[in-house]
Each structure stands twice: as structure tokens, then as C-alpha cells.
């Protein structure tokens, strides 16, 4: 104790004649004093967490047991993390290039349109919203129900204006006597001949969907030389007996019924009456198939599943582009403004077409700016997180996940596996390092 006490008690620098050495020490102290705040800040917030994360990535879930590289092995064996890596690769390949080129196109075009400020403001506006809020907005846009999701609502409007609505919205065969779906045709499973009665019972038709002029369904009398039948809503409260025309069951008027030979040749087509009956009066003997034509069904549009496992990543990419296109445009437009006009004019005077001027003069001169945008986007994309968690519903988070999201889900989202979570963090860090190195080299060159 006394030894350490005496050492600590010693003055740090004993009085000495060498003034030069003392001045050197003072200079160092001054430098250290100025560096200290930044150094402490970097140490506490950057260096220490980085080292701890790397250290932690070699331990198991509980943090007690050293597991070596096992967490890194999990990185490349776990299906979900592999999906995250794959998705991140898609993001890296698509987004920086897409954002840069869209930004370039916008920047060049806005130079030539009136009201360019208004246009630029509109495109830049999404930058003002937090990515999470933008994600929520886009999630609503992408909802599947055409009544709820704006995108599907738009598609539904376009679709409806092209397809002629049939009398029936949706229907299913009521029994095994019929086959097919309302997506195509519904036909009798067994062929019929002269004198037979064709019973075409349909269910899953809402009572409000039955045409207003419908009357009680009637089972027609058989006709000697023809084929008669009825198309009706084979349902009454409680269900009723499938395949039987019963009281309280309504005929379906205005339905197209088609008669074909067993070979498929069309014989005739008719409409059902208000009680659902139809009749082909004179037919030759032989076997026929009876079917309800697809024109009787108006195809209801159920909406595209934008946020299903297949389309969710492209859907998120598009909303990300929506956010960042404005940033790219503004930066590139600034670069564009700095290009000397005389070079462009010289090129035009020399007979270059607009495309040639753009390809061979504008783009090369813009290259430094484009690189900045591209690299910024590259780094942004590697750490993308908020917009994915905001847009992807829980059921597809495994399919839409990216590395940063997977790191959070693993370390904090319930599993609380800090080992593997740290390993993912280190992996992301390693991916960013080359880009950082590139950036630093560029900075040095510019200085």
C-alpha cells in the first residue's frame, strides 16, 4: 500500500532544467486535452460497443459459455438468416442502382420542365417523413382488400371497366352433380340426353346478390324431344337438401346456359327465365353436356397479395425508392447545375444528339456525384430496417427479413439470443467495411 501511495504521491514531472522536454510534455497534454472529449465519446459510444459486440458474438445465448465460431456457423445454416442474406443481396443489387438512375432521370428532366421546383418539392417530400411512417402508409396502400388497399382499389377500378359484369358475383356447385368453379364454367358432371331434366343448383350466392326479378324456382316438366332444366339458388335458410328444388329457393334469371355435344361442339345457348328454368326444345338424340357460361359470372377481384411472401420484398423496394428518389434527384441536380454549360454547348455544336450529349458528356461529368449517391445508398441499404418491419406483416417477416432486421429479431424480438444477434451485427459490419474503405480513399483523394 505504502509503495503505491508514494508513487501516486510523486509529482508527475519533477522540476527539471530541460525546458524543451517540459514544453513537449505540455504540448502533448494540450493535444490530449483537446482530443479527450472526442476520444471519450468515440470510446464509449463506438469502440467499446464494437469490441463488446465482437466479444459477445463468441458466447452462447446466456453469455456464460464460450462457443467459438458456432454463432457464425448458425449465420450460414439458419434458413431465416440465409433468407435475410439473400434479401440483403437483392437490396444491394437493385436499390442503389435504381435510386441513382431514377434520381438522374428526374434531375435531367426537371431541368427542362416548367414548374420544376414544384415537381422537385413533391419528389423530395417523402424525405421529410420518417421511414417508419412511410412504411405504415405503404402498408395501407398495399392491403389486399380492394376496399382497403389503395393500390388494389385502383386495379379493381381498371379491371371492372374492362370486364362485363355477369348476373352472378360468385357461386359454387351445390352438390357433386356439378363440377367446375365460377372462375370458369360450372357444368353437369354427367351427360344428359333427350327428355332429361338438368338440375343446376348453385350455392354461395348471397341473398342480396340474387337478381331482383327472381321467382320461386320450379323443377320443369320433362319434354319429349328436348332438354329442360333449371338454374337456381340451391339454398334456403337452414341449408335445405342439396340438389333438390325446394320451396323458398329462388330461380336465377338471366343466366346463360350452353348445350354442347359430348365432343365439345356447340349446339345451342339460352337464357334462364325468372323462375330459373330453361329449355332446349328440339335436340337430336345423343349425349350432351350442359354448362353455365362463364359470362354469367362477374369475376370478383379479390386483390393482389402484395404483402404475401412472394411480392413483399419488391413491394418494400418500391416504397424505399419512393422515399429516396428525391434525395438522389436533389443531389444530382446540384451536380448538374455545376457542369459548365459551354462543354454541353460545344458538344451540341459539334453535332452530338441529345442522347450522345447525355451519355458521353453529362454522365461522365456527373460521375463523382453519382458515386456519392450510389455509395450513400449502398450503406443505407445494408442497414435497412425500419421500413421492412413497418411494411411486412408478422406472417411474412421471415420472408421479407434483411440482416439488420434479423439482428434485431434475434437479439431483442423475443428470442433474446444476443450471441447470434451479435454475430449478425459483426457480419453486417464486415460487409460495410469495404465500402467505408472506398469512401475514405475517395475523401483522401479529394482533399
Amino acid at each position: 500500500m505504502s509503495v503505491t501511495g508514494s508513487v501516486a504521491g510523486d509529482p508527475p514531472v519533477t522540476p527539471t532544467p530541460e525546458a524543451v522536454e517540459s514544453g513537449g510534455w505540455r504540448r502533448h497534454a494540450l493535444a490530449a486535452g483537446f482530443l479527450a472529449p472526442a476520444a471519450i465519446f468515440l470510446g464509449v459510444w463506438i469502440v467499446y460497443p464494437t469490441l463488446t459486440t465482437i466479444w459477445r458474438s463468441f458466447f452462447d445465448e446466456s453469455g456464460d459459455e464460450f462457443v467459438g465460431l458456432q454463432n457464425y456457423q448458425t449465420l450460414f445454416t439458419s434458413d431465416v438468416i440465409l433468407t435475410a442474406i439473400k434479401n440483403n443481396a437483392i437490396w444491394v443489387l437493385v436499390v442503389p442502382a435504381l435510386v441513382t438512375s431514377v434520381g438522374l432521370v428526374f434531375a435531367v428532366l426537371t431541368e427542362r420542365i416548367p414548374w420544376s421546383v414544384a415537381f422537385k418539392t413533391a419528389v423530395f417530400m417523402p424525405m421529410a417523413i420518417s421511414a417508419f411512417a412511410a412504411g405504415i402508409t405503404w402498408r395501407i396502400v398495399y392491403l389486399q382488400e380492394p376496399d382497403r388497399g389503395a393500390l388494389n382499389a385502383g386495379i379493381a377500378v381498371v379491371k371492372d371497366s374492362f370486364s362485363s359484369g355477369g348476373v352472378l358475383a360468385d357461386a359454387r356447385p351445390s352438390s357433386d352433380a356439378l363440377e367446375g368453379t365460377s372462375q370458369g364454367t360450372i357444368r353437369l358432371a354427367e351427360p344428359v340426353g333427350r327428355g332429361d331434366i338438368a338440375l343446376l343448383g348453385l350455392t354461395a350466392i348471397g341473398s342480396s346478390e340474387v337478381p331482383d326479378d327472381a321467382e320461386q324456382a320450379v323443377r320443369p316438366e320433362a319434354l319429349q324431344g328436348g332438354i329442360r332444366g333449371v338454374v337456381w339458388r340451391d339454398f334456403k335458410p337452414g341449408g335445405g337438401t342439396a340438389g333438390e328444388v325446394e320451396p323458398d329457393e329462388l330461380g336465377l334469371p338471366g343466366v346463360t346456359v350452353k348445350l354442347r355435344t359430348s365432343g365439345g361442339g356447340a349446339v345451342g345457348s339460352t337464357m334462364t327465365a325468372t323462375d330459373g328454368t330453361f329449355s332446349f326444345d328440339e335436340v337430336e338424340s345423343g349425349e350432351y353436356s350442359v354448362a353455365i357460361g362463364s359470362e354469367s359470372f362477374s369475376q370478383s377481384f379479390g386483390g393482389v397479395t402484395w404483402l404475401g411472401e412472394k411480392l413483399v420484398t419488391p413491394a418494400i423496394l418500391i416504397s424505399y425508392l419512393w422515399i429516396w428518389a428525391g434525395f438522389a434527384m436533389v443531389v444530382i441536380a446540384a451536380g448538374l447545375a455545376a457542369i459548365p454549360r459551354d462543354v454541353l454547348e460545344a458538344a451540341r455544336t459539334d453535332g452530338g444528339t441529345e442522347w450522345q450529349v447525355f451519355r458521353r458528356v453529362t454522365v461522365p461529368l456527373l460521375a463523382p456525384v453519382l458515386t456519392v449517391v450510389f455509395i450513400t445508398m449502398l450503406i443505407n441499404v445494408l442497414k435497412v430496417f425500419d421500413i421492412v418491419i413497418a411494411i411486412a406483416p408478422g406472417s411474412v417477416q421471415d420472408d421479407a427479413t434483411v440482416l439488420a432486421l434479423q439482428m434485431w429479431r434475434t437479439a431483442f424480438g423475443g428470442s433474446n439470443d444476443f450471441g447470434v444477434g451479435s454475430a449478425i451485427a459483426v457480419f453486417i459490419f464486415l460487409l460495410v467495411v469495404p465500402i467505408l474503405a472506398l469512401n475514405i480513399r475517395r475523401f483522401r483523394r479529394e482533399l
Partner: protein
Amino acid sequence: MTRRIRGRAAALTLIGALALIAAGCGGDDGGSSGDGGDVSGTLAVTAIWSGAEQEAFQAVIDGFTEANSGVTVNYTSGGDQLPTQLSTAVEGGNPPDIAFLGQPGLVRDFVEKDALQPLDFAREDVETNLGDSAVQLGSVDDTLYGFLFKAANKSLVWYNVAAFEDAGVEPPGTWDDFLAAADTIGASGIPAFSIGGADGWTLTDLFENIYLRTAGPEKYDQLAAHEIPWTDQSVKDALTEMAKVVGNGDNIAGGTTGALQTDFPTSVSNVFSESPKAAQVIEGDFVPGAVESGLEPETDYNVFDFPAINDSAPSVVGGGDTVVMFKDSPAAQAFIRYLTTVEAAEIWAERGGFGSLNQDLDTGTYPDAIQQTAAGALSEAEVFRFDLSDLQPAAFGGTVGQGLFKLFQDFVQNPDDVDGITQQMEDAAAKAFG
């Protein structure tokens, strides 16, 4: 901001209450035991209830202090942060006398910390008034530490009255009738089911209800504790039954892909709106909170009990607030015993928003027919079990997009592969239970 201030205010009140207890304890020996009852003292009680619930609980407290005028009960609302507050108070050695815990796992946690007093003195009261299930739920290693005072029912089916009338079906009582009714509803032109599959917990709730009925309460407990694997035949049987609901895409609003895109609020508004997209939704007694305004209970929407499967006994999957005692005293014992009585339950039941396992409680006490069904099932239930997924480690049973939530979503997508999905569930469970 307001929440934080409120939290601080609550914490301050808690400290104040604790100071009062300290003062009250000193006076105990004086024994001035008022005109009614023979106990005296001051009790600090805390739960999450605030607002209308706090008023209702205050009425319950008043019922007690009227009979025991020597006791002062100070209630403090802990809000959402109650578990944290209690853990801190226990750590600091200053817990309230009595608390109500919403998380089943928390009772065990506190027992393991030696923070709770056993309720042996109330065991008989709990058994006779609230039933065996209540004793079992409140016991840790066969010692009673608490009982469910306010219970929630997750075994309900909510339906659109017009859609049922249109299809000519009655609320079914058995699983077979339920499935037959679903077919009839589908034939009437509206999908029978709305399923909020984008939130995995709606799917685990459905499974738990089926499993409790097909496999029985013993297996349910074993599965909850992972004493039997998820590959057990009983799980496969329950999934086969579940597939009869979730596997029939034609009879689900939006089909199975649509169901996985539908969150819980949407699944409710699918059923309860001007132009409904489905006839019924299977979820707990909190559904009315998500029903659009303008729809009237009973005339527009109504509820029935989750149907019995193979003559299963009346069963309820649910949750609620378990009362526990941190500090033993005659006054605390008297209050705990009071909470098991039908009188205490009636006071809150009349005011609504309450469910009780109390078997003597007349269901007519609840303010409307919907609550009579929802809460009545609780007192009539022969079997009551906590939500199974709530009893699992969080990574397995309670995390969005992972564990059981995700696996049940996979099951909805591919309901034929029962063997495959149970194997995946078992793998995930084994990992989570370690």
C-alpha cells in the same frame, strides 16, 4: 409524457402508501377494532386497474371496509408498468400487502424469490367458491399462492346476427354442429369465418381452445409445461380438427392467403360492419372493443361459447388478474377471504367489464346478455386454463413472426402437413425450453 408523469405520480403514491403501512403497523397492538369486524390495520393494494375499473374495484373495497371499519385499504393503480414496479418494490423489500398480477408467470417468479405468502388459510374458500381449477391455477408446487379474482374469457365465438338469420342457423353447441353451421353459412353466400391470421396469437388461441377440448386439461397442462412433445398424437388430432376451420379457404373471408394478411381489428370489422365479409370470428371477450360504433349488441352482433368437442366438459381458455399476498396480517387475510366471496364478485359484476370464476355468482348479475354469456361461461366452466402460449418462453410463445405464432401461420398455409408442422413446433419448443 403524460404516461411518464402518471407513472411517477403512481410511484410516489406507492411510497406514500408504504409509509402509511409502516405507520399502521405500529398501531396494530392498540387493537381499536371499530364497530364491525374484528381486524384492523391499513392495507396497501395495487393492480393495473385505472379509470372505470379503478372505480369498480374501489366499490369492492368499500364493500369490505363497511364490514370491517377498523381496516383502511389504500388502492394504487400501477398501470402497465405494474410488473416492473412490483419487482422493484420486492427487490427493495417494500412490496404492497396485496397485489393483482396479470401475468401467470409472474406468480411463480415471485414465489421463487420468496416474496409471496401462502394462502393456506383461504384454500377451502377458493376451492368451494371458485372451483378446483382456480386452486390449481394459483398453486405453485401444490401450495396456494393466489387465485384469479378477475377473469377473462377467450373461448368465445362472435357472430353477425343478420348473417346467421340469413343462413337460417342457430348458435351451435357442439363442434359438429359448429362445422355443419359453417358449411350452411358458406352456402348462403358469405364466408363463415373471419380469421386474423396476420397476428399469430389469434391462431394459437383457436388451437388452445380445440386442444383443451380434444386432449383434456391434463394433457393441456403437460403440453404447456412441455412434458409431452408437440409431436404427441393429441396435438396432431387437435390440428386435424383445426384444419376443418382454417383449411377450408372457400369459407374464410379472403381465403387462406387473405386470412394471413388480416390483422385482429380487421378480422373483427370483417364480421361487424354494414356489409360484412364473414359471419363469425373466434376470439375473446375483448372483441366488442374492436366492433365499429353504430352496431348494437344482441340485435346486430352476439356471442356464443366455443362449442364442446366430443362431449367435452364446459371449458374456458383465458387469463385474468391473480390476487397475491406479499405481507401477512389479519387484515390482509380477511381481505383475501372476502375476495373469494360472491358478494365481492357481485359488486363488480353489476358494473360490467368483469368476469369471475365464482360458481355462486348468478349470471343475471352481469349488466347485459353479451356479458352474461361471456362471463357466465367462466363461472359455469368445469375446466379453466390459462392461455397456453402465454405460459411458454417468450421466444416460442409470444413473439411476432416467430415461434408458435409463425408456425401456426405456416400451418394455415399448408394445413395438410400435420406431421411436418408438429415436428417443427417440437424443434422450436425444445430449443426454447433448452
